[in-house]
C-alpha cells in the first residue's frame, strides 16, 4: 500500500492505494492520524483501495474519532466496491460521511 497526501482548498486529501491489510494498516493509520493532526478537514480517497480489512477499518474509525475530538471533519471519498462492502459489514457506512468523489468530499468539508 502507498499513500499520497496533499493539501487543497483548506483541506487535506489523503489517497490510500493498494491493499490496506494487517501488514499495511499501521502505515495507513499513521498517515491518517498525521493528516488529522494538521487541524484541517480530511478527505480520504479510497478509490485506489482494492482491499481493506478490519484493521484498516479500525484505522479509519480511530482517525474519525480523533478528528471529531478536535472539532474537525473527516470524510471518505470515491470508496471502492471492495472497501464499501467491508464498511457495510462493519455497519460503518452510516457512521462515515461517504462522498462519490474527492471533489464532492472537498465540498462537503468546506
Amino acid at each position, binding site marked *: 500500500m502507498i499513500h499520497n497526501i496533499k493539501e487543497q482548498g483548506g483541506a487535506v486529501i489523503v489517497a490510500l492505494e493498494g491493499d490496506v*491489510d494487517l501488514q499495511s494498516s499501521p502505515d495507513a493509520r499513521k498517515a491518517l492520524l498525521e493528516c488529522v493532526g494538521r487541524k484541517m478537514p480530511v478527505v480520504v480517497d479510497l478509490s485506489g483501495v482494492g482491499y481493506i*480489512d*478490519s*484493521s484498516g477499518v479500525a484505522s479509519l*474509525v480511530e482517525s474519525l474519532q480523533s478528528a471529531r475530538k478536535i472539532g474537525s471533519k473527516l470524510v471518505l471519498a470515491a470508496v471502492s466496491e*471492495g472497501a464499501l462492502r467491508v464498511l457495510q459489514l462493519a*455497519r460503518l457506512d452510516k457512521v462515515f460521511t461517504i462522498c462519490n468523489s474527492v471533489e464532492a468530499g472537498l465540498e462537503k468539508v468546506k
Partner: protein
Amino acid sequence: MAKRQTADASDGGEVQIYDHLELLSAMGQEFASSLDIEASLKRAIEHITNYVNAEGGALFMLNDEGKTLRCHASTGPTDITGLTLDADQGIVGRCVQNNASEIIRDVSKDAGFHGGIDEKTGFTTKSILCAPMSVKDERIGAIELINKRGGDGLFEDNDLHLLQAMSASAAMAILNARMAEALVEQERLARELELAAEIQRSLLPEAGGKDYPLSGVNHAARTVSGDFYDFFPLDDGRICFNLGDVSGKGMNAALLMAKTASLFRCLGKTVRKPGRLMARVNAEICETATRGMFVTMAGGIYDPATGIVLLSNAGHEPPLFHDTNDNFHDMPAEAPPLGITAMLADGNEFPETELRLDGGTLYIFTDGLTEGYLEDGSELGVEGFKAVIRENANLDAAARLDAVIKLIDRGDVALRDDLTVLAIDDSKNHAARQTGHTPSNVTIDVFGSDEPELLLSLTVPSQADRLKLVRNAVLETAKFCGCDKDVSRDLVIAVDEACQNVIRHAYGGSPNGKIELKICRNEDELIILLRDFAETIDVSKVQPRDLDDIKPGGLGTHFIREVMDEVEFLASPGDGGNLLRMMKKL
C-alpha cells in the same frame, strides 16, 4: 409341674394367671411385643413373684461384661432396682457363678446372705429362693424371691422347681428380646447402607450406548464400595474419565470415594489438563482428608477425534494398553496417591502421559480385579487378565469386561475386594478416522457425509505479508467455483480475517507459526478449514465485538460470522492448535 396355684391379685394388681404354661406364654408375648425390655422385666418379676406367692422378688442381670450383677426389676416391700453387686457377691452371685439354683429356707443360717438391705429397710428376710437365668452356656442373671406369703414364710422345694422353670423361660425371653433388638438395629444399619449404596451407584456414569468408546464395571465387595469410575463428555468433544480406589473399605472409604469422584467431575469440566486436574483434586483432598486415608487414581482425557489419551496416574495400579498388534503395555504411576501430600515436586501439576490408542484399548482397573480369586482359588493376576482379554478380543469392550468380571464375581462367594474396571476402546473411532478422508487427523465430520473435492491446500508462515498471497489464492479458488464477485470478495474477507486472528491472537504476532488452509467443495457447500499449531484458544472468548463500541482492532470475527453461513471451532486436533471450519453455501 403344672401345679395349679392362685396368684395374689390384691398384691401385684395384675390379672390373675392360673397356669404355669399360661404365665410362660404371657411372658414370652410380653417380651416379643414390647420394645422396652426394662418394662417387660418389671412385669415378668411381678408375675413370677405372684405366681410363686412370694413377698418380694428381684431380677438380676450380668452387666459390664459379666463383672457385676445389677437388679433390673424388683417387686415387693423393698424396691432394690438399680442395686449393683459384684458378680460373685451374695446368694445371687453364687447362684449365677455356679449356674445352680438354691433354696435357703432359713437365711439366718447362711453365710452368703447380704444383710445390709434388711438393715436399711427394716424388712426381715426369712427365706430365699434363687434360680439362675441362662440359655445353654450363656449366663444372663438370676431371679431371687424373698419370703413365702403366709404360714411360716419359708419356701418349699416345690417352689424352687417352679422358679427354676420360670427363670429358664425368662432367660429365653430376654435372650430373644436382645436378639430382636440387635436384629432391628442391624436392619436399620442395613437400610442405611443400602441407601448409601444407592447414592454411590448414582455417582457412576450411565452406560454410553453401543458404540460409545468408554465402558466400566463396578462390583462392591460389601454394600458400599471404595472404588469408583466416571466418564463425562467435555464440550469440545473430548471425554474426561477416571478410575480410583480409596484405601480401606466400608463407610469411611465410601464417603471419601464420593468426595473424590464429585471433585473430579466438578473440576474436570473446567480444568482440561489431567495433570493439573489431578493436582487440584489432590490439594482439595489433602486439605480435609482424614489422616491415613488416600486415593489412588488414574484419570485423563480421551479425544475421539485423534485417539489420543492424556493420562495422569496418581499411585494407581498401572493401566494396561492393548494395542492393535496384540501387545500389552503398562502405564506405571508417576505420582503419589491423592491425599498423601499437597507438596508436589513438579510445581502444581501431576505428570501426564500422552498415549496414542490408534485403535487399541486402554484398561484401567483396581487390584480387586487382578487379586480376585478364580474358581480354583488362584488369583487372576495381570497375566490372567491379559489372557481373558485376548480370548475375547472379538467381543466389544463391554462384553470383554463382563467376561473378566464373571470369572471373579461368580455370585456364590463374597468378593475379596471391590472390583472395578474401565475400558477405553478406540477401535470404532479409529476405523472412522481411517475412512474419514479427512486432512490431518481430524475425524469430526467436517465435510458432512459425502466425499468433498479438495480445491486448495496452502500452508503459509504466520506473517502479515503473506496475507495478500492467501487472499489471491482464495479469490481465484472462489472464481474457479463460479462464485460471483460479491461472494468471492466475502470469502476473501472471511479467510483474511481468520488468518489475521491466527497471526495476532493464536501466535501472538510471532512470525514463526504455520497456517494451513484447505478449501473443499461438497456439492453446494464451500468448506474452508484453517488450522494453526498455536496453543488452543478459549473459543468462548472469540466473539464478535459489539458494534456500538467500535474501537480500533477486533472487528474480524464479526466479519467472518457476517459473511459465512457456518463458523465453528472444531475439537482441538491431537497435536495441538486450533481448527476453524467455515462454510459458505454456494
